[in-house]
């Protein structure tokens, strides 16, 4: 039988933190599991992402069917922005072949937390091919 390799203290600490990270990740996924739509508010949550560069934060939001003139981006506080966008057409569950839910949606809505300090007053937006891009200097 081969001798069992002795692990260094660094390997043990690294493994401990990896295990902890996985646990936190799983917990986060469980807590954030929710539908991407809200029937009461008639809103859908768009796909969105955030990229943090040394000099600015770029947020992108996928807004198919959104009307460019009806897109609003509002700072809620120093670290949070709220995005809402009216759609050109009403979307119903039936449009996706779903008959066990009832509801229709006219607006995209989401709030995003910016995890680094930014200068909200310098925020710039552009909308191209249904994709909203928000750039906020740090």
């Amino acid at each position, binding site marked *: 039988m081969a001798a069992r390799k002795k692990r260094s203290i660094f390997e043990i600490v690294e493994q401990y933190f990896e295990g902890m990270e996985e646990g936190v990740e799983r917990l986060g996924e469980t807590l954030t599991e929710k539908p991407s739509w809200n029937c009461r508010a008639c809103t859908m949550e768009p*796909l969105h992402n955030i990229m943090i560069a040394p000099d600015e934060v770029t947020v992108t939001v996928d807004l*198919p069917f959104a009307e460019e003139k009806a897109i609003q981006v509002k700072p809620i506080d120093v670290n949070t922005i709220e995005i809402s966008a009216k759609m050109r057409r009403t979307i119903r569950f039936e449009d996706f072949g779903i008959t066990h839910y009832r509801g229709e949606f006219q607006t995209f809505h989401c709030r995003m937390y910016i995890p680094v300090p930014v200068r909200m007053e310098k925020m710039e937006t552009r909308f*191209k091919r249904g994709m909203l891009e928000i750039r906020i200097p740090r």
Partner: protein
Amino acid sequence: MSGEVKIIEKERISTNAVMLFGFPDVGLVGVIAAAHLISELKLDEVAFLDSELLPPLIVLHEGLPHSSIRVFGNNEVLLAVSETPVSADVIYPIMNALIDWGKSKNVKMMISLSGIPIEQRQDAEKLEVFAAASSPEMLKMVQDKGVEVLKEGYMVGPQAIMLQRCANMGTPALTLLAQCFLNYPDPEAATEVLKGLEKVTGIKVDTSKLLEKGEEIRLRARDVMKRTQQELSKMKKAQEYDIPVYVS
């Protein structure tokens, strides 16, 4: 491990077909392209994958249960498609079982359809398609047909497993990758990968509907895209951006 994954055949499976793979990945390029191929070529479900390695999930269509990983086909094409992202923990046995099954059907070639993310995708006027191959002969074939080769880099996900296993088994295989969004469903990229497929295999479909329905597809695919992002992050997909150390 492959023994834990069963491919159940529903119909007689043709031999000498081209086997395609459309699995959730960046931009959902493969899944969108696969859904379009099934619709345009009117492919029937010919087999499905059964395994306790998969999560306790079925897909309901018209009130009836279906496996989330199915094979559609006709005499010329076999198309393996997954409607949900496959977890990094089980991707090897799932892909190996599908590849071994395809090999047992004497498929003449395996091709996975996928994407390669680019920055500033919304500003890209033309999306390029790249190919990686299982052998120098396959590489020459795609180059002769006008598809650019992805020369250096890393590949992460189902297509990586497919290409490596086929290279080991001596089965001709390709991965076609269209430039795309990383985290957003990309029907335009799916259109381009289908054009690449046509160049390589002659399998032709009208892609105009894919572009016409682009916004609807993006809306419909949000939830699958979100779950795919989570799995891709576990697979360390961002490694595809890394510059490799060249070891000859």
